[in-house]
């Protein structure tokens, strides 16, 4: 497939200038022409790329149709997921495509203000967006840049709105959801940067063009962040590409036997065994049905020299530490699960720890203001299924079948287009 989001100059050239961007793509529809794109976005079948996969066109229509004053648009580039770097890469290389999407969305829903929320740790992305804003001459509404705190939950949509309103990036109780009451109490469209970039292309080329690629029920292309391969980095793939095919291209083996498992969707996602996963299409619907998740496009391969139990323990410890510390079940439940999981991982488990984490995990979903506990235990439950015998070994023998207890090195994913 020819790249779409990453069409244009090679990544090594750095951010695309406004002149190059405009020469390549022309202008994005604005004003009433932007309003007219809502049905086109709906017809395209574009799903949100921040993790939840909500239909983008439907979201725009809800915000456009809300009472409660002129809406706001919140451009979400927080990207707190440790295994993802596609959003910062996109913002760095194609800042004008992201801004096109933001301006299009603002005009489409009738917004009079745009907040751009970029992870504070993603300095290159922020610089690129800042320079792009200076270059543009077609911005006729206030656009403000916000540095998202480097926490996992900062990108959750109610947390993002909370930060813009009150400099506090913790989730709030919903309802009301941001599309009903968000920035300054007004209806707010919170949209991931990749979703906006896709919308900016669909507005130019149409919904049929968007659906012209895709190998499964969900149309289009998507950015993924691959790790645990020989050529880690961000890639644009056709949605529905089988995991095994991506593995071969990225250098994670030609055969499922070359890897043990793969974590899809990131720390909120789910594990599948390599044996099962190799034939699975990278598609939000199909992965959900397989007990995993497309999420924000994370594909992290786990080699045979790594231990799935230890990998999971490390993720759970991180997720417990990233609780916004507002809701009891998340504060106490996630920490208890993380501690018991750590004991199992390092050979100091108490007798019933495995049964305990299973019971606790099943109790936690749906019991926080946000989905942080749900995401974390979803990943854990998938690990219990995929690495079941390894968990048993850790519980019964307090040891690990992998030589030397090698841990899952959480890969530092470079901002690199592979």
């Amino acid at each position, binding site marked *: 497939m020819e790249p779409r989001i990453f069409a244009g100059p090679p990544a090594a050239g750095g951010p695309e200038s406004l002149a190059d961007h405009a020469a390549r793509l022309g202008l994005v529809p604005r004003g009433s022409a932007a309003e007219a794109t809502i049905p086109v976005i709906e017809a395209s079948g574009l799903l949100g790329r921040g993790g939840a996969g909500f239909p983008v066109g439907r979201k725009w229509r809800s915000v456009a149709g809300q009472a409660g004053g002129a809406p706001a648009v919140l451009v979400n580039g927080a990207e707190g997921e440790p295994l993802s770097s596609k959003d910062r890469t996109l913002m760095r290389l194609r800042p004008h495509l992201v801004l096109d999407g933001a301006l299009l969305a603002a005009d489409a829903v009738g917004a009079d203000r745009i907040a751009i929320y970029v992870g504070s740790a993603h300095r290159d992305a922020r610089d690129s967006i800042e320079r792009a804003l200076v270059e543009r001459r077609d911005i006729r509404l206030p656009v403000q840049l916000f540095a998202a705190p480097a926490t996992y939950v900062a990108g959750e949509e109610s947390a993002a709105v909370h930060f813009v309103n009150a400099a506090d990036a913790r989730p709030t109780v919903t309802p009301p959801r941001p599309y009903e009451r968000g920035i300054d109490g007004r209806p707010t469209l919170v949209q991931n940067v990749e979703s906006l970039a896709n919308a900016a292309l669909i507005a130019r080329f149409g919904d049929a063009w968007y659906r012209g690629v895709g190998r499964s029920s969900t149309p289009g292309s998507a950015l993924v962040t691959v790790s645990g391969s020989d050529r880690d980095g961000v890639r644009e793939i056709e949605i529905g590409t089988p995991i095994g095919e991506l593995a071969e291209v990225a250098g994670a083996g030609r055969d499922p036997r070359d890897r043990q498992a793969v974590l899809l969707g990131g720390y909120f996602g789910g594990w599948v065994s390599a044996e099962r996963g190799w034939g699975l299409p990278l598609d939000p619907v199909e992965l959900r049905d397989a007990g995993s998740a497309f999420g924000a496009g994370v594909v992290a391969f786990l080699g045979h020299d790594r231990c799935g139990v230890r990998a999971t323990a490390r993720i759970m410890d991180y997720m417990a530490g990233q609780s916004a510390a507002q809701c009891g*079940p998340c504060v106490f439940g996630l920490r*208890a699960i993380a501690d018991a999981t750590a004991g199992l991982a390092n050979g100091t488990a108490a007798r019933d720890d495995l049964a305990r984490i299973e019971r606790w995990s099943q109790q936690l979903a749906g019991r926080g203001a946000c989905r942080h506990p749900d995401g974390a235990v979803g990943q854990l439950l998938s690990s219990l299924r995929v690495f079941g015998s390894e968990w048993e070994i850790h519980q019964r023998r307090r040891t690990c079948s992998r030589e030397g207890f090698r841990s899952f090195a959480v890969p530092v994913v470079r901002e690199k287009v592979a």
Partner: protein
Amino acid sequence: MLTAQPTSRAAAAELVVDRIACDGFGMCAELLPELINLDDWGYPIVRSGGVPDELMDHARRAVAVCPVLALRLRRSVRP
């Protein structure tokens, strides 16, 4: 939006916990053990399926005694 009257035995209301406000006092579970259990740290686990009519009085009392007003009754939203 309520699109229809609750049919036959569908519950007309459900208990909703404000998870940020809840401090795990546990009085709700004492008054309404039929619908609310506590987890290992004292935070409520509400049984799904809404509040049956015969428990509505107890549910209202549980809502009223919560010291931090974290529990409320919401009309069921179902077709």
